[in-house]
């Protein structure tokens, strides 16, 4: 019931606000976002206290892995939602709120179903719900970005469909028609008997397909455009959790492939894509002239790191990867929210145009610096801990060469990001910004996310370690 309620909240919020205008729309938006957050946290706590939540004969199901993603989606959606009224005040609201909540709904649905097919439908839905949000400002650049986004992600998701079909095929081939409604729970039980070569082929399609949504290089080409052209709250959602939903889909298939295919097959693919993503990001972080694109390439890098953690595997690597997903979601979403405020004040997303930010907008500048230091992976923030876990797993599992190369690339990427951040904060001032948004209200979401990052970096709250252990038990049965 609780799971169903969680899905109904954003869906009905979207439906109700479809025709709402003015204050009523803002109020509906706020209520929906708050309820979604509360529902998500309630589901997460319930699942981690007891058994997985199941509804509709197992059609909807949330285990610890789902609960982790649900909590993240709830938190990031709340952060992004808090910024939305400020963004909408600058433009015509149009269908911003309904599409926003529809987008959140599709992501929640993707991670809270036990059905392989329904997950595919929901992931496809994320693209359809968000494409108009990317083109919300209707400029030439945002039009181009949304076109690329729709085309590339549709092709990607069709390839993932092909992979899903082959998984069905392998199941039917081996076990007949009773596996027709394919569930993760049944698939995992059947996995050892599935044809290894068919499953391997299916996994390649699934990784390419869902990897496109996850923004893994070389399928990442839509990402910098869509992330930089979308309104800031949408960029925060896309970068913070949409990419992770793609990773989640791959992660769901990994135990099946590990059980069915040759040992190390999934690992090889994940490591290769992980290193490539970090390498691509390292190159483009140095050359990007636009700070929103810079943040977007930083997402490619962090998703690459998550992939590396999953590839290195073991309890440490898997837990590190999942923790990194959460840390990145928090740090990147406030990074994008702040970039939206900077863009609104200066009217430009070029790094060169916003030089001297620290002096001209001290509050925003300081918050931006903190978010970027977190993204660079410095202690005391959580990304430092999760990166240590990922690379610790790499060396412990004997992948010295891969971990070493990735570490060098990581340093290059971080230097690139730092270089850009320095130019933004302390570069020569070119323009005079509009008045800075100040006060406690805009500072609240940023402070909340930074506080959570300090928690994951310094002192894990009770239950976090248990939650990660439960996820590891799901991914490495």
């Amino acid at each position, binding site marked *: 019931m609780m799971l169903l309620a969680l899905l109904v909240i954003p869906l009905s919020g979207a439906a109700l606000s479809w025709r709402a205008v003015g204050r009523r729309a803002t109020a509906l938006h706020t209520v929906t976002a708050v309820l979604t957050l509360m529902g998500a946290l309630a589901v997460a706590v319930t699942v981690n206290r007891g058994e997985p939540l199941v509804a509709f004969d197992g059609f909807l199901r949330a285990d610890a892995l789902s609960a982790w993603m649900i909590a993240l989606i709830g938190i990031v959606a709340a952060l992004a939602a808090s910024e939305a009224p400020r963004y909408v005040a600058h433009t015509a609201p149009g269908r911003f709120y309904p599409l926003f909540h529809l987008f959140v709904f599709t992501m929640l649905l993707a991670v809270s179903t036990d059905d392989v097919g*329904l997950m595919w439908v929901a992931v496809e839905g994320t693209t359809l719900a968000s494409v108009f949000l990317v083109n919300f400002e209707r400029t030439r650049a945002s039009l181009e970005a949304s076109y690329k986004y729709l085309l590339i992600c549709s092709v990607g998701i069709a390839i993932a469909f092909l992979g899903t079909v082959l998984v069905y095929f392998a199941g039917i081939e081996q076990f007949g028609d009773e596996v027709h409604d394919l569930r993760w729970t049944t698939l995992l039980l059947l996995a050892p008997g599935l044809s290894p*070569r068919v499953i391997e082929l299916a996994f390649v399609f699934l990784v390419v397909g869902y990897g496109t949504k996850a923004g893994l290089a070389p399928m990442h080409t839509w990402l910098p455009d869509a992330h930089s052209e979308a309104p800031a709250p949408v960029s925060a959602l896309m970068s913070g959790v949409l990419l992770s939903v793609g990773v989640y889909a791959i992660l769901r298939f990994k135990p099946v492939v590990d059980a069915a295919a040759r040992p190390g097959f999934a690992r090889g693919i994940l490591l290769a894509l992980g290193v490539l993503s970090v390498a691509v990001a390292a190159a483009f972080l140095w050359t990007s002239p*636009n700070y929103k694109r810079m943040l977007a390439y930083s997402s490619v890098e962090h998703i690459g790191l998550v992939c590396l953690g999953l590839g290195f595997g073991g309890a440490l690597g898997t837990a590190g990867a999942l923790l990194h997903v959460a840390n990145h979601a928090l740090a990147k979403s406030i990074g994008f929210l702040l970039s939206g405020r900077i863009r609104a004040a200066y009217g430009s997303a070029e790094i060169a145009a916003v030089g001297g930010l620290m002096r001209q907008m001290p509050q925003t500048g300081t918050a931006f610096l903190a978010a970027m230091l977190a993204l660079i992976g410095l202690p005391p923030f959580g990304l430092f801990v999760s990166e240590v876990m990922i690379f610790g797993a790499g060396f412990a599992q004997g992948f010295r060469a891969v971990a070493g190369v990735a570490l060098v690339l990581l340093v290059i990427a971080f230097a690139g990001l730092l270089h850009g951040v320095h130019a933004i904060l302390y570069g020569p001032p070119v323009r005079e910004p509009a008045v800075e948004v100040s006060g406690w209200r805009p500072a609240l979401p940023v402070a909340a996310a930074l506080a959570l990052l300090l928690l994951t970096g310094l002192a894990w709250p009770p239950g976090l370690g248990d939650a990660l252990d439960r996820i590891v038990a799901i991914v490495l049965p």
Partner: protein
Amino acid sequence: MTTAANLLAFLGLVITLLIVWRQSWPARLRLFVAQSLLLAALASTVGVLAQRRGLLLVAAVVVVVKGLIIPRVLARIGAGTAVRPVAPGRSSGITLLVAGGLVVAAYVIMLPVTSAAELPTGRAIPLAFAMALIGLALCVTGRDALGHILGFLVFENGIFGLAILATYGLPGIVEAGVFLDVLVIVLIMEAVVVQVRREHDSIDVDRLRELRG
């Protein structure tokens, strides 16, 4: 059953090759309609022979969505587009040759599936996959929005054909999701194309070149 399914999948591939060969837009659109109707025929053949009633419904939806609605939207998008002369240096002979190479590649890639398949329709799977691969190539090399959409739709037809041949019909929610997906993508594409046309007086997406680096 094997023969019928094989024949239909083979005809689907032939139509795909014709789409590669023909350069004029209305001809390509007609070929796409023919291909979609063949797909419906494939679905109903497999449905009758494997006694899957669901597939007959799927066939009916294919006829409505891909045989009627989508072609209508595509015709609306394409109205007023000049027939494009063959671009210099890209004769359709060479593209046909590439398409032939993709057919071979499809057989190689699908070897694990065909060798595992005990289904009577297993032999036709590489044919459907070849359709998908050629569609993907058309989509990637398309020079305007229409080329991209058409390539995507052929790609999608191939994958859909493969799904029918390999599984005799997926659960209803997935089938519904696939149709909704294609339909919404085409409609969104239309909206995008309308906007591109307004901004650039052309649907040549090569003009979308602002985002770099």
